[in-house]
C-alpha cells in the first residue's frame, strides 16, 4: 500500500555515499599488497590481488549507478544534488585509477627497478593514506546532514580535509623525488620499461589527486 507520509521521503544518498567511499578505499588499499608482490616479481600473487581490485572497482561502479538512479531531479535536499553527484564521481575515480595502474603493471609484468622499489612502495603507501583520509572525511556526511552543514561539525570536517590536503602535498613531494631517482637510473633500464615506470608513478599519484578532489567536493558542500 502506498502511503503519502512514507513516500515523501526520497531515498537518502548519505549512507550509500559513505558505503561507496568505503569500497573505493578498500580497492585502493589492495595496491599495497599488489605492489609488494609486483616488486618481488611474484606475478601469481599480484594477479590474485589484481582480481580483487577488479572486483571492488566493479562493486563501486555498480553502487555508483544505483545511487545515481535513486537521485531524481525532483528531490529536495539540504545540498545541491549536482554537488553530491560530483562527489560520487571523484570517489569512484579512486577505484578507477587503482584498477588502471594495477592493470598496466600486470599486463606488461612491469618490473619496478630494485633501486627505487622501497621508495616506490613508500609512495604507494602515502597515496593509500590519502584515500583513507578521504574515506574518513566522507564518513562524516551523515553527521554533516544531522548538523545541517553548520557549526562545530563543519569545523571538524574542515580539519579533516586540511589533513587530506597535507597528505596529498606529501605524495606530490614523494612523487617528484621518485621521478628524480628514476631519472638517475633510467639509462640502465630498458627504454620502454622506463617510460612505463614513469607512467605507473604518474597514475599512482592520481589516486591521491582524486582523494584530494573528494576533499574539494566535500568542502563545496560545507560552504552551503
Amino acid at each position: 500500500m502506498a502511503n503519502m507520509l512514507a513516500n515523501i521521503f526520497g531515498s537518502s544518498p548519505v549512507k550509500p555515499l559513505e558505503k561507496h567511499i568505503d569500497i573505493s578505499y578498500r580497492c585502493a588499499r589492495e595496491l599495497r599488497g599488489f605492489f609488494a608482490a609486483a616488486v618481488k616479481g611474484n606475478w601469481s600473487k599480484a594477479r590474485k590481488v589484481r582480481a580483487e581490485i577488479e572486483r571492488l572497482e566493479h562493486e563501486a561502479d555498480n553502487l555508483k549507478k544505483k545511487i545515481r538512479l535513486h537521485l531524481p531531479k525532483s528531490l529536495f535536499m539540504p545540498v545541491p544534488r549536482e554537488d553530491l553527484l560530483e562527489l560520487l564521481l571523484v570517489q569512484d575515480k579512486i577505484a578507477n585509477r587503482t584498477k588502471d595502474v594495477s592493470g598496466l603493471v600486470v599486463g606488461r609484468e612491469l618490473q619496478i627497478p630494485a633501486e627505487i622499489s622501497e621508495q616506490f612502495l613508500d609512495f604507494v603507501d602515502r597515496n593509500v593514506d590519502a584515500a583513507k583520509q578521504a574515506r574518513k572525511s566522507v564518513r562524516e556526511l551523515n553527521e554533516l546532514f544531522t548538523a545541517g552543514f553548520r557549526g562545530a561539525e563543519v569545523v571538524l570536517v574542515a580539519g579533516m580535509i586540511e589533513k587530506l590536503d597535507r597528505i596529498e602535498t606529501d605524495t606530490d613531494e614523494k612523487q617528484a623525488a621518485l621521478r628524480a631517482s628514476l631519472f638517475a637510473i633510467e639509462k640502465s633500464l630498458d627504454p620502454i620499461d622506463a617510460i612505463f615506470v614513469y607512467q605507473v608513478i604518474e597514475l599512482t599519484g592520481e589516486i591521491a589527486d582524486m582523494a584530494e578532489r573528494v576533499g574539494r567536493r566535500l568542502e563545496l558542500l560545507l560552504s552551503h
Partner: protein
Amino acid sequence: MEAQYVYISLAAVFGLFMAWGIGANDVANAMATSVGSKALTIKQAIIVAAIFEFLGAVLAGGEVTATIRKGIVDAELLSHEPRLLIYGMLAALLAAGTWLLVASRNGWPVSTTHSIVGAIVGFAAVGIGVDAVQWGAVGKIVMSWVISPLTAGFIAYLIYLSVQRLILHHEDPLAQAKRYVPMYMFFAAFTLTLVTILKGLKHVGLDLTLQDSYFMAVAIASGVAVVGALIIRRIKPNPKAEKSQHFYTVERVFGVLMILTACGMAFAHGSNDVANAIGPLAAVIGIATTGNVAADSPLPIWVLVIGGGGIVIGLATYGRRVIATVGEKITQLTPSRGFAAELAAATTIVIASGTGIPISTTHVLVGAVLGVGLARGIEAIDLRVVARIMVSWVITIPAGAFLAIVFFYIFRAVLP
C-alpha cells in the same frame, strides 16, 4: 418512532466502520513517525495510541464533533422533515468510510476529514438544496485545510531551527541536548494541556478560571519536564556507536522527548479525527431520539466508546501493518527531526480541535515534515509526491460527495 432504532443501529455500525478506517489509516501515520525513529516499538506505539487517542477524543473532541454534527448543514431548514438529515448523515458516514476503504486499497492518498466534509456537503447541497449548506462555515474549513499544513510547517521550521542553533551546531551537542530537551518537553506538555484545559474540560464538567487553567498547565508541564530531565540524565554516551560529535547519543536524548510528542500526536489526532466518525453518529442519535433537528442533547458516552474503540480496533487489525511499513520508510526522521515535526503538528491540530475546525492530521504532519526539510533537516524529500498530496484532497472531496449523494437517494427510498 419505531424507526429510530433502525437509524441508531445503522449509524452505530457505519460510525464503527468509519472509526475502523481512521484507526487503520490515519492513526498509523501519526504513530509511524515515532516508530520510524525507533523512539517506540510498534507494540508501545499501539498502546500509546489507544490511550491517548481515547483521551483526546473524550477530552478535546467535543468542538469538532459539534462542527461536523451541525456546523455544516443548516438544520433549521429541515425542521419540517428531520428524517432527511438522518438519511444524509448515514449516507455521509457510509460514503466516507467506503471511499476511505477503496482509496487505501488502491494506495491513493486520502484524508478522512476531507472525505466526510465532502460527503456531508454533497448530500446537503444536492439531496436537500444548495441553501442547506452553511457555505460560510464550509469556506472557513476549506481555508483551514490550506492554512493548517502551512502553520505546522512554519512551527516545525522554527522548532528545528532552534534545535540546530541550541544543540546540533555546538561542540558538545550532548551536554546542550541534556540542558535544552527538558525545555522542549515543557513547551510540548504546556501547549497540549493548556488547550485541553481551556477547550476540553468543559465537556467533562470541569470549569476552571483562566488563571487556574494556566497555573494547572504550568504545573503539569513542569512535572513532565522534571521527570523527563531525570530520565535523560541517565543516558550515557555509547563510545562504540558514535564519533566525536556524540550525535548518536543526542538522538537517544531526543528519543525520550519523542515519546512525549508521540502521546501528544495521538491525543491531537483523537481530538480532531474521532469527530469524523462520531459527529454524524451523534447527529443521527440526537434527531432520532428527540425528533427535533435543533436538539442539543449531550453526547452519550457509548458514542465516544464506539469512536475510540473503533479506532483502536482498526489500529490493532490493520494499522499495525501500516505503522510497520511507514516506519521502515521514514528512518530519515531521526528523533531530533521527528519530534519537531510531531510537536508542530500536534500543536496545530490541538489548536484546530479547540476551535472546532476539522482538519486533516496527515496533511498537517506532511506540512510539518516539509518544515523540518526547509530547515535543512531532511536528507531527501521527493517533491513529486508532495505535489501529488496537494492535489489529492481536490479529488477526495467530490468523490466523497458523489458517493454520499448516491447513498442518500438509496436510503431515502429504502429506509422507513
